[in-house]
């Protein structure tokens, strides 16, 4: 039976987050915690593959205890099982330490039910790197397939998958052996509204929760802040360019002034210049 695990994260909604301008830290209380938008597409794709091929969809997250809510959201989308690893020792992890911890959890999940496919989001909106997915794939020695925007086929019996990977100017069709890992683009699917049965199930759902001590043999020096090669040394408010000149007068005057400014760069408008032509 096809077993797909989607890796998901709860994140602060950076769209409405408020920053403390004195310390340049986020005011976490100002931002509701949501399921990372990219990860909802990862879960949705897993659910769609299950509809096509049968199987089981699990979701895995590493985060503080309230992140259970993000798992519930995934159950609403249609996931079957939820796993969460939570422990103080994980705190402060960068992408390398995160992929290590998640890999340990995936190894444990695989003991319960072997994993054929792992699906990650393109990136998180707080970490914003897209590095965790490929990191997990390398640690489990699976081929990482990033920028996936279409799944053509997953063939468990013959052990391969075919997907489209988005390129800057098109896409490539790539075939990989299973198991492998996809990082999926947002455009891969649309997440529909949850169904009532899923919502009811989600409300009652209790995920499997593990601490470091549940993860078997683990190298504690590779976890959390201690296990993170990158550190944030300073933060500052982004510099904004200086404000310029607001043109005065009636619209006709404003337009005349603007024309003068723009046409001073006449060379840009010679035949063939401008546009994407160069």
């Amino acid at each position, binding site marked *: 039976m096809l077993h797909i695990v989607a890796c998901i994260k709860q994140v602060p909604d950076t769209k409405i987050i408020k920053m403390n301008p004195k310390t340049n830290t986020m005011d976490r209380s100002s931002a509701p915690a949501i399921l990372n938008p990219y990860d909802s597409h990862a879960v949705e794709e897993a659910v769609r593959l299950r509809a096509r091929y049968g199987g089981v969809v699990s979701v895995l997250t590493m985060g503080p205890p309230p992140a259970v809510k993000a798992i519930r959201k995934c159950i609403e989308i249609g996931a079957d099982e939820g796993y969460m690893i939570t422990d103080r020792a994980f705190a402060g992890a960068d992408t390398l330490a995160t992929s290590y911890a998640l890999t340990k959890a995936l190894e444990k999940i695989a003991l319960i039910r072997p994993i054929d496919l792992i699906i990650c989001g393109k990136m998180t909106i707080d970490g914003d790197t897209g590095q965790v997915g490929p990191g997990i794939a*390398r640690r489990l020695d699976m081929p990482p397939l990033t920028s996936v925007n279409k799944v053509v086929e997953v063939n468990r019996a013959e052990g391969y998958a075919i997907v489209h990977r988005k390129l800057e100017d098109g896409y490539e069709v790539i075939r990989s052996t299973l198991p492998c890992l996809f990082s999926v683009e947002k455009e891969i699917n649309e997440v529909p509204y949850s169904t009532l049965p899923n919502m009811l199930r989600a409300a009652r759902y209790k995920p499997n929760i593990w601490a470091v001590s549940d993860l078997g043999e683990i190298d504690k020096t590779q976890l959390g802040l201690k296990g993170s090669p990158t550190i944030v040394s300073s933060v500052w408010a982004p510099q904004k360019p200086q404000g310029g000149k607001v043109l005065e007068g009636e619209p006709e005057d404003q337009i005349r002034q603007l024309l003068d400014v723009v046409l001073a760069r006449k060379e840009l408008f010679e035949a063939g210049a401008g546009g994407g032509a160069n």
Partner: protein
Amino acid sequence: MNFEDYRGVWVFIEEKDGAVAKVSLELLGAGRVLADKRKTELAGVLIGDNVQELAQTVFEYGADKVYVYDVPIYRFYRTETYMRAMLACVEKHKPEILLYGATSTGKDLASAVATDLPTGLTADTTQLDVEEDTGLLLASRPAFGGNIMATILCKKYRPQMATVRPKVMKALPRNEKASGVIIEECIPITEDDIRTKVLEIVRSTTQHVRIDEADIIVAGGKGLGGPAGFQVVHQLAETLGAAVGASRDVVEAGWIPHHHQVGQTGVTVTPKIYFAIGISGAIQHLVGMQNSGLIIAINKDPSAPIFQSSHYGIVGDALTIVPMLTEAFKTALGRKEEADAGKV
């Protein structure tokens, strides 16, 4: 790990349509500054099939040395093959800093290499500097949705790695007389070892405008009210022979496809002229266009942040001002008849 063994600044050289990708040239420019500060060499790593001749370009844009892996197995980018080449090169020649373009290929490769080495990797860097004495790389990037800038360090591991956003670093002027050392590298690798196969590459046939290459961009935002209002942007762009850009909210509303989106989760652009029409000027938009040569904002709200970031502004209703502007340009440019001629 003995840091003394790690010397030199490297750039992963990406190939695009038989030439060196622009982002790689930009990184050579940035890498040169770092290498000079550290009094060390700048090298490119070139992986592909029939790519050795590109080494000359890499020298012309600032490198002293190029490591080349040139066999047919590298014809198409694949994580598995490129990663092995890069890992072998790093283990053998030990750079202190290794930069990649933050393109889909560069990010994919860097993430895999960082895990295997292992070392720290900073994503989507927009500013680079190095401490002359310690060699510590100061890689800065927008964080938390662009709300802050953060400087990231990697103190315990070498090489220090970063992916760098296209269009933020400056390439050096080309020096045709430059030359350097080519080092041919090779690792045992056969197709049988590789679990991924590229079956087909499909280039999008719709010739969509590459906004990152445009000299003039006319960008529209949510303030235009809807797809009908957004037409004024298309009309002005056509008249100017410009590319069309958009804010994320417009793209999410479905008025225009994603490849027109400017900003943190879209494209970074540096045209000579950028029109921001009905765009509020959120920080995530600004990071994608603030290095444009001339920024012109049209917005009906005089307190819109975009005015803080533009060279010239007009406060008013875009739906009346932009059509007037288009007409004025048509007349000035003698384009009344051939309004479509500049279309790309």
